[in-house]
C-alpha cells in the first residue's frame, strides 16, 4: 500500500520534471519509436525494449515504463501508437506517454493491451530506478533512492553503486547508501561488508531499518558477529523509536489538551467571574459547529470557490451567534439566579436540553457532514511522528484564542472590569463598575469562545446535536484542576490532563484512562480544593 503511494508520488515528481523537458520536442520524437516498439513481440522483446529505453537515460520515458508495469499501457489499433489508458467508466481515457497530452477516450476494443509479467516488472523497476537515480533533479533522485530502499532491489546494486559514485547531494547520498546497505544485507556479501551495512542502517534508525535488521538477527544462518551487530543496532533503534513514541504521545496529548482548552476556556471565564456553571456551555460549542455546517452549505451552493475560506467566515459568525445567545441566556435567566449557583446549574441544564432538541428538530438527529478545507487535511512526518494538519491547526488556533483572550483581559478596560469583578464583586460595584453589564458581556464572551471552539471541533468531531454533551464534564474538570479565576491554570490544566490521558491510554485503554483521570481529579481536589492556581485570600471565601 505505502509502496504504491510512493510510486504515485514518484510519478507525480516525474511528471513535474517532464513539464520542464517537454521543451525538447525533438528529444521526445527520438524516443517515440522506442516507446512504440514496446508493443512489438512477446515478453522477451518487450524486455529488450525496456533496456533500450533505460539506456537513453532520459527521464521522459519513465511514465511509459511506469504504465507498462501497472498494465496501463496499450497500443492503439488504428495507428499503432502506444498510449497510456486509464479507466473512465466503461471506456479508457488515453494520454500520450511522452508528452502527457490527453488523447480523448476510446472503447477498450480499439486497443491492444501490452502484456506484462513479474519478470518484466522487475526489469522495469530497476530501469526506472536507474533512470530516476540519475535524474538531474535531486528530489527525484531522493525519491528514487527511497523507493529502492523500500523495495530492496537486489538487481539495482550496480545501478546504486554508479549513482553513489556520481552523487553530489549529501542527503541523497545518505539515502542511496542506506538503500545499498539494505541490498547488501539481502545478497551474498563478505561479513565485514554486511556489518558495515548494519552500521549504516542503525544510523537510519527508523521502523524500516528495524524490520530489515530484525530479519537479519532472526535468521538462523546469520554469522554470530553479524547477528550481534544487528542486535545491538536493534536495541539502539528501539530506544530511538521509544523516544519518538514519547514524542508522538506528547503530541497526541497536546492535541487533546488543546481541544480541552478550547472547550474549557469559555467555561473558565464565566465560572471564574460569575461563579456560575453554565451547563449549556457544551451546546454553545455544538451551535458553533452547526454554524460552520451552515456556512459550508451556503458556500457549496453559491460559491464553491470560497470553500477554503469557509472556516474564516464561520469563525466570526459562530462567535456572534453564540455570544448573542449567551447574552440572551444571562439577561433572560441567569441574572435572576445570582447567589444560587445550584439553581443556575439546573436552569442551564434545562436550557441545554431545549437547545439540543431544537437543533435535533431543525437539522435532524444524525451527524452532519462538515468538510475539511484542503489546508486542514492530510498529514506530514516529523521524524517518526505523524502530525495531521487539522490537529496542528487546532493546537495553533487554541493557543491563539488563549493569547487573544489574555490580551482582552489584560489590556482592555473590559478586561480590567472583569478582573475586578472576579476578585471582589461588591468592591467593584461600589467603584462604579456596572457589574450587570460585565456579567452579561462576560457570559457573551464565554459563550462566543465556546462557539468558535465549535468551529474548530467541527473539523475533528462528529457534528451532531450531542456534540456538546461530551465536553461539559471534561471542561469542568479542566477548570477545577487548573483553579478557578486563573486562565493560566486552565491552560496548564488542559494540557496536563490531555498529556496524562494520552500517556495512560496505551496501558489502560481509552475508557479506563478516562476513568483514571476522573478518579485522579476527585483525589486531586482533596489536596487542593481550589485547583492548581488558586486565588487566595478573603475575597474568594465571601
Amino acid at each position: 500500500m505505502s509502496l504504491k503511494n510512493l510510486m504515485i508520488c514518484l510519478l507525480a515528481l516525474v511528471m513535474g520534471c517532464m513539464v520542464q523537458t517537454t521543451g525538447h520536442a525533438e528529444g521526445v520524437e527520438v524516443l517515440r519509436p522506442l516507446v512504440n516498439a514496446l508493443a512489438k513481440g512477446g515478453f522477451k522483446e518487450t524486455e529488450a525494449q525496456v533496456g533500450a529505453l533505460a539506456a537513453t537515460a532520459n527521464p521522459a520515458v519513465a511514465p511509459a515504463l511506469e504504465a507498462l508495469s501497472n498494465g496501463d499501457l496499450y497500443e492503439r489499433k488504428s495507428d499503432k501508437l502506444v498510449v497510456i489508458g486509464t479507466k473512465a467508466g466503461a471506456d479508457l481515457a488515453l494520454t500520450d506517454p511522452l508528452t502527457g497530452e490527453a488523447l480523448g477516450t476510446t472503447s477498450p476494443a480499439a486497443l491492444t493491451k501490452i502484456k506484462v509479467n513479474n519478470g518484466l516488472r522487475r526489469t522495469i523497476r530497476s530501469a526506472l530506478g536507474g533512470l530516476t537515480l540519475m535524474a538531474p533533479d535531486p528530489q527525484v533522485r531522493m525519491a528514487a533512492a527511497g523507493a529502492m530502499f523500500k523495495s530492496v532491489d537486489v538487481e539495482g546494486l550496480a545501478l546504486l553503486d554508479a549513482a553513489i559514485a556520481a552523487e553530489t547531494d549529501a542527503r541523497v547520498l545518505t539515502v542511496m547508501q542506506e538503500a545499498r546497505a539494505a541490498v547488501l544485507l539481502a545478497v551474498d556479501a563478505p561479513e565485514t561488508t554486511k556489518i558495515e551495512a548494519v552500521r549504516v542502517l542503525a544510523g537510519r534508525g527508523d521502523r524500516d531499518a528495524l524490520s530489515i535488521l530484525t530479519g537479519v538477527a532472526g535468521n538462523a544462518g546469520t554469522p554470530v558477529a553479524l547477528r550481534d551487530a544487528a542486535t545491538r543496532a536493534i536495541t539502539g533503534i528501539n530506544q530511538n523509536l521509544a523516544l519518538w513514541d514519547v514524542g508522538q504521545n506528547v503530541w497526541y496529548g497536546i492535541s487533546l489538551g488543546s481541544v480541552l482548552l478550547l472547550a474549557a476556556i469559555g467555561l473558565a471565564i464565566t465560572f471564574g467571574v460569575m461563579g456560575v456553571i453554565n451547563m449549556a456551555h457544551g451546546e454553545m460549542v455544538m451551535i458553533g459547529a452547526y454554524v460552520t455546517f451552515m456556512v459550508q452549505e451556503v458556500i457549496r451552493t453559491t460559491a464553491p470557490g470560497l470553500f477554503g475560506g469557509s472556516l474564516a467566515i464561520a469563525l466570526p459568525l459562530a462567535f456572534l451567534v453564540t455570544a448573542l445567545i449567551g447574552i440572551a441566556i444571562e439577561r433572560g435567566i441567569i441574572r435572576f439566579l445570582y447567589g444560587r449557583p445550584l439553581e443556575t446549574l439546573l436552569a442551564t441544564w434545562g436550557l441545554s436540553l431545549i437547545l439540543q432538541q431544537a437543533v435535533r428538530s431543525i437539522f435532524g438527529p444524525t451527524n452532519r457532514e462538515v468538510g475539511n478545507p484542503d489546508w486542514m487535511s492530510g498529514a506530514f512526518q516529523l521524524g517518526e511522528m505523524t502530525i495531521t494538519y487539522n490537529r496542528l491547526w487546532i493546537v495553533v488556533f487554541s493557543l491563539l484564542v488563549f493569547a487573544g483572550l489574555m490580551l482582552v483581559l489584560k489590556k482592555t478596560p473590559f478586561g480590567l472590569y472583569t478582573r475586578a469583578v472576579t476578585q471582589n464583586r461588591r468592591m467593584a460595584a461600589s467603584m462604579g463598575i456596572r457589574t450587570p453589564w460585565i456579567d452579561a458581556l462576560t457570559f457573551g464572551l464565554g459563550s462566543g469562545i465556546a462557539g468558535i471552539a465549535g468551529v474548530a471541533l467541527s473539523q475533528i468531531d462528529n457534528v451532531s446535536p450531542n456534540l456538546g454533551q461530551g465536553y461539559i464534564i471534561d471542561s469542568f474538570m479542566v477548570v477545577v484542576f487548573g483553579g478557578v479565576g486563573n486562565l493560566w491554570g486552565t491552560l496548564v490544566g488542559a494540557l496536563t490532563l490531555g498529556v496524562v490521558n494520552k500517556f495512560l491510554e496505551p496501558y489502560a485503554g481509552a475508557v479506563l484512562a478516562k476513568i483514571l483521570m476522573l478518579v485522579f481529579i476527585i483525589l486531586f481536589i482533596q489536596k487542593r480544593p481550589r485547583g492548581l492556581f488558586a486565588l487566595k485570600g478573603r475575597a474568594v471565601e465571601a
Partner: protein
Amino acid sequence: MRQSSLLYFDGVSVSFDGFRALNSLSLVIEPGEMRAIIGPNGAGKTTMMDVITGKTRPDSGEVFFGGATDLTRMDEAAIAELGIGRKFQKPTVFESHTVWDNLELALKAPRGPFSTLFHVLRPAERARIEDLLELIRLGSRRDDLAANLSHGQKQWLEIGMLLAQEPQLLLVDEPAAGMTDAETAETADLLRDINKTRSVVVVEHDMTFIRALGVKVTVLHEGSVLAEGSIDHVSSDERVVEVYLGR
C-alpha cells in the same frame, strides 16, 4: 506567662497572596478577663478571630488556649467543643429554624450525628433554654423563625446561642453594630454580666461602647499590636490617634 494565660498568641503571622493580615502578632488574655480589640479596617481583627477559631491556619507563630492546648492543630468543631464561642460581625443565626431550635442546637450536648439522631430534650435542657430566652428577651418569640427577627434581636439571639454553648472564652465581633443607643447600652451590660463567669474578647469600632465596657484595650494596626492599656491610655497615644482615631 503562657502557662497562666487563657489565650496566648506569640509571633503569629498570616499572609494572603503577599498581603500580611497578621504580622508577628503577640497577645495574652488572662482567665476571666474581658478585652476590647480596636483598630482600623484591615488591622487584622477578623483574621485574629479566624486563627483562634481554626478557620485560618497561621503561617508561623504559636497559639495556645488554657496554656497547653495548641489551637493551630485543631479544626473549628474541636475548638468550639474546647470552649471557645464566636459571634460573627454579621449576625448569623439559622434563619429557617425557630428561635427555640436555634438555642437547642447551640446547647452544650454531645455533638456526634448518632447522639443527635436519638436525642430527646431533657427537662434540664428545656429549663436552660427557657432561662436563655429570658436573658436575651426573646421568650415571646420562641416559636418564630429566626429569619423574622429584627437585626438587634438576631444579635441577641446569637449571643444567647453563644452562652448556650457554655464556652470559657467568648469572641464577640462588633456586637453593637446596627443597634440603637439603648440597645448598645444593654448589650454592654449583658457582656459585663457574662464576664462575671467567662472571659470575653470584644472587637468593636464604637468608642462609646468600649468606654461603657471599661476594660483593657488592645489597638491593632497592620497585623500587630500598636498599643495596649486602658481606654484613656490608648486614646492619648500619639500613634493610635494618628492611625485610628484621627485628630
